[in-house]
């Protein structure tokens, strides 16, 4: 916040501001193909018995796909810090919900309940 000593109306030196960036169809196509490949991969991986790793792999692939979509399709890679923080805040709160609640369930002395 220190580099924000004065505000300029067009937000040029604002850390919350990022130059508008046009992503090209080439990038989009690469992303598109990658996503399809990962989709195939996740289906294949599901039929391989990896024990406990199955859901981990499935989720890892889903997360990679999600990150790719967020970065390129949703332009976050080219966005201001503020937008990046916003995205992070969402996942942070979601993680808080999950971990804090789950920690209750797994630390119960009485199994399911």
């Amino acid at each position, binding site marked *: 916040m220190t580099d924000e000593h004065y505000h300029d109306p067009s937000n040029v030196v604002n850390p919350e501001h990022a130059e508008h960036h046009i992503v090209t169809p080439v990038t989009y196509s690469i992303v598109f193909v990658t996503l399809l490949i990962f989709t195939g991969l996740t289906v294949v991986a599901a039929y391989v018995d990896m024990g406990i790793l199955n859901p981990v792999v499935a989720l890892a692939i889903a997360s990679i796909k999600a990150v790719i979509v967020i970065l390129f399709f949703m332009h976050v890679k080219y966005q201001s810090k503020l937008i990046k923080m916003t995205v992070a805040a969402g996942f942070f709160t979601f993680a808080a919900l999950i971990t804090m609640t789950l920690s209750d369930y797994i630390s119960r002395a*009485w*199994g*399911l*309940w």
Partner: protein
Amino acid sequence: MHISPVLWQFLVKWLNASALFPREASTIAPYADALYFFLLLITVVGLTVVGTLVFGFAIRYRKEKHPVATQVEGSTLLEATWTIIPLALFLICFVWGALLYFRIYNPPTNAMNIYVVGKQWMWKAEHQGGQHEINALHVPIGRPVQLTMISQDVFHSFSVPDFRIKREVIPGRYSTVWFQATTPGTYHLFCTQYCGTNHSQMIGEVTAMTPDDFQKWLQASTSGMSLAQNGERLFASMGCNACHNGTASARGPNLSGVYGSKLQLTNGSEVLVNDAYLRDAILNPSEHITAGYSPIMPTYQGQVSEDGLIDLVEYIKGLQSNYRIQQTLVTSQADQTAPTTPTGVKP
């Protein structure tokens, strides 16, 4: 807190007499009250500090006296002071509160067990000897009593303010609380979790009696059959003994001595057999298959009431040898009352 015992007793006496303070009728009550007074104290101190500051400044620097304000930026030292002191006080409250919490929710091992079933809108208490009470609970003084509680429908909450205890009574799971009454008398029993229309009528009385009186009361109100005996009948009538007959070739695991033991399950986990486990194993058997057995037991969901489950659990708890199961086989055929079970003392 280091108030002199005399002063403390005087204070408590005075408060007890003043109807602004609940009676201290259990061993836990003084502990709860001590924390309460500590919290009150810091509240009063905090309030006084804030009040003095606000009123002091307001009077001293009112416009008539102090027409022009002097601007002050702030002070790191002061900020630190009023961060650290409240934080320290709150942390004391936390530790103290936690200690009290575990005191209230961890029953001593020698507690006498009474079952409580809550339903819209009444309390049913079941003593080991089979004495049933509705909206009432008789307990001896000077002896720790553990309540194993369950609800048939919605959340309820079992509260005896004069004992300073309370615990949610939950559908589908046993919850426990314990207390040791100190003074004979009758005390309010409230349902404190909102449970529908007659929530405010789900009340009763806890009667604490001297051990002698309690024995007399037990004798006078016995219904003839203890919980375990009822359980034994159920065990037979539902055909449990067909599989759990304790023989080597039995299709179900041997139940003698199972209570309190560690069981190896087919899914590899190891569990401690307690009331909750037994109840769950009757209702959801296929999720609790003892290693070496096949999942053939049908579920009894919807076929046994919570009271029946309590009877069964109590029966299985008392099974210390195969002899009893074989007896049950005989009993079920002969339909006689079985010999009394040993009073269930928690292992």
